[in-house]
């Protein structure tokens, strides 16, 4: 069974603006998929649907054996919490919490905060020595690595990365991409949304989205 299967999915905002139409997509376990396309093509909308943050208006989405048509909004929150790990372009760390505390927040919403485990996750992204710094005291690359650690902390089945290197310089971009490659090698399923060719090329598979329609590269 595929990890994620979208069948004829459409998204219409406010009953008028069509963002997605007839989208079919299958992602297997251990896959690394890059979704590419110009601005306004519907990338983010697709991301929101896969990330369980928005509900599609037509078609079928099955994530890890769960049909998202069948679930309530509350259950959607729960699925997001359990199955998805997210990395954002703008990092989105809580500014008044330290790096390790930011990881513990994700644990807190999921189940039990565990400082040891959070430290291990930071160690993993090479930031153990920065654990007690506030986000404002970290560089962009460091912040993004904290985000990746946060995305991994609850053992998600799918890691969603929205333009993960969009705000980073070349050196940090390389660091982050190496990290993704390593994660994929270990068996993590990754979907990245990007319009950077370099980031796209790192993936195993690329799909292109244009005017709300999906096609293979």
């Amino acid at each position, binding site marked *: 069974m595929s990890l994620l299967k979208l069948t004829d999915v459409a998204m219409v905002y406010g009953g008028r603006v069509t963002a997605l139409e007839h989208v079919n997509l299958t992602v297997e376990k251990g896959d690394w998929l890059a979704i590419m396309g110009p601005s306004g093509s519907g990338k*983010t909308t697709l*991301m*929101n649907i896969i*990330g369980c*943050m*928005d509900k599609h208006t037509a078609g079928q989405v099955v994530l890890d054996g769960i049909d998202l048509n069948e679930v309530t909004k*509350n259950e959607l*929150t*729960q699925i*997001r*919490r*359990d199955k998805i790990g*997210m990395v*954002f*372009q*703008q990092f*989105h760390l*809580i*500014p*008044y*919490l330290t790096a390790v*505390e930011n990881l*513990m*927040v*994700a*644990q*807190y*919403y*999921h189940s*039990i*905060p*565990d400082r040891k485990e959070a430290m291990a996750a930071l160690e993993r992204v090479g930031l153990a020595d920065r654990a007690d710094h*506030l986000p404002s005291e970290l560089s962009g690359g460091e912040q993004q690595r904290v985000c990746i650690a*946060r995305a991994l902390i*609850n053992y998600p089945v799918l890691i969603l990365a*929205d333009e993960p290197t969009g705000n980073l310089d070349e050196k940090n971009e390389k660091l982050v991409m190496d990290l993704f490659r390593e994660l994929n090698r270990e068996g993590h399923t990754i979907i990245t949304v990007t319009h950077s060719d370099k980031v796209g090329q790192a993936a195993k598979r690329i799909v292109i989205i244009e005017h709300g329609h999906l096609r293979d590269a």
Partner: protein
Amino acid sequence: MLMNLQRIKMYLTMVTNALLRRKLRMFIALLAVAIGATIISGMITVYKEVPEQMGREFRAYGANLLLLPAGGSTTIQEEKLQSVYQKLQGHEIVGSAPFLYERLKINESPILVGGTDFDMVKKVSPYWQINGAMPSGSGKELLLGYELAEKFQVKPGERIILALGDGSWESPFTVSGIVRTGGKEEQFAYMDLKQMQEIVSKPGVISMAQVSVVASAAELDAFTRQMAAEEPSIHPQTVKQIASSEQTVLGKLQALVLLVTVVVLLLTLVCVGTTMTEVVSERRREIGLKKALGADNRNIAAEFFGESCMLGLLGGILGTVCGYLFAQAVGTNVFGRSLQVSVPIAVMSVVLSIAVTAIATMLPVRTAVKVEPAIVMRGE
């Protein structure tokens, strides 16, 4: 159990750090709450103290209670007054001036002379305007009413002859001063009570006593009824002109302070409300993020609730201290005495600031939790 402890610890970490590490914003919010608590504790203390403290000021109007002989007698035994004072326990007695009135002769014309305790007269009737000095009590001194002084053409320091009505005793007295009140007192002469009792051979006896006591008209009425039942030989009479008028004026003053308190409190409420709305709305992105991380509405609400309670507690304590200082300033400057710390008011103002802050936070949070987690994905 251990698991829960971990969760609570994390919850507290998030809540306290949201306050401690966002200094400027939270300082402003704290200020708003503290001002509110200052108003609550300071103004309510003042409001509560107005009748008591201003009541003391009103004692400048003189006696509000007269103790008259009753039951056929025309005099009161001095020692009986003690039992009256005991019954007035709980009310501050500003002063109690005993008077023994007798008709004596000054320069051969009959004059009503009152024997009294001049130290007490100063307290009970501070409005007596004395030209010269009050009799000291040691020498043979007399205080003359203004009309008498005009009639006899005497000035302070001069001597006059005081005699008993039947002529069996006479002695020269020095006029120590002349009193003006605009009332009946100007037609009388006054001397020390002890001397008077000796001269007329009525030791330990008085005709009446004027009492100035800090109590409301209703309390005085209740006291009058109690006295009538327990002490038939003394008839207490409320001076209605003083007692009920005092009530009217005090009532208005208190109403004024109350009205002002309510208005200022309302302003502060609006202030806290908008500040908290601001605090919540500028964190929409954070709410979205937390939701993307899997927080549900309850989590978000609980975190804001915790923050606001803590903010309310800190601001409440800070404000209560400031409010107490304000009440002290009013106490020492206006009433010339320090006001007492009221624990119930302090507790109330802290609890109230917590409640107000919590309510002011929860209203915007109700709309804020509707934030879609998707906002974190869109570029801005």
